């Protein structure tokens, strides 16, 4: 099954690398959108049906945690699984993100297998929403 994915990262290069790595991992992507920060991601969500959000934590304008806080306020957006892909290793921030409802956390640098395993675990869970 193919999933529509939104990649949120302020680095254009990293968005490209994540997209390539997810494809290489064998996880099937349907449509794929990219945003440079949380606000751009929220704007995309207004017009595009997204099954999964992969987001960085530290970004200008609106960071990953701020974006998740906005998502959980909305009845529809809060059902979209969010996975953090970040170099940030600070436990309190990761714990805060999990408390807000993120479904997974992948640390950069990453192997394709780590991405595939995490994404399949989340998307193939019986009631991932």
């Amino acid at each position, binding site marked *: 099954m193919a999933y529509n994915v939104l990649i949120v990262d302020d*680095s*254009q*290069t990293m968005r490209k*690398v994540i997209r390539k790595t997810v494809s290489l991992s064998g996880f099937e992507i349907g449509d794929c959108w990219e945003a440079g920060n949380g606000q751009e991601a929220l704007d995309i969500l207004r017009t595009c049906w997204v099954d999964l959000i992969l987001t960085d934590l530290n970004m200008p304008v609106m960071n990953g945690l701020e974006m998740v806080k906005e998502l959980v306020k909305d009845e529809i957006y809060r059902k979209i699984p969010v996975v953090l892909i970040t170099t940030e*290793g600070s436990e309190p921030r990761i714990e805060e993100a999990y408390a807000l409802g993120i479904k997974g956390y992948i*640390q*950069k640098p990453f192997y394709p297998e780590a991405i595939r395993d995490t994404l399949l675990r989340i998307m193939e869970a019986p009631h991932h929403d």
Partner: protein
Amino acid sequence: MKAEWINPFLEATVSVLKTMASVDPVPGKPYIKQGTSATGDVSGVVGITGDTEGSICITFSRSSILFIISQMLGEQQVEINDEVKDAVGELTNMISGDSRRRLEEAGYHFQGAIPTVISGHGHEIKHITKGPILSIPFNTQAGPFTVEVCFK
């Protein structure tokens, strides 16, 4: 600077490039750098705070960075453009983050700032503190790069 702080930077550099670009850099003998001139054509610099203060710089030769980013993106890169500079910033961030995680396992706590990227042949590197600059040279099949670590 404590000797046990060197290995985390060395290991993180090898790990990040291997994981993200399938490049196996070979470390050379570390030395104390004199002066401020960069040995490479493009450099990423990031400040570190916590148990002590300092900065890390990764300075790449043109040939090595074009090879590394080509590998990373799966697209041939022929010039140091904005995309390559963006990737240098990301690599610096990942090496800094991975080093800090390794240092944390040894009981040291550091936070990293946002990296800055400087390019141009013969550019200068300004480290945040005035301590000795430890340089760790690396070689790849496409050319050299150097990791500089400078703490109070």
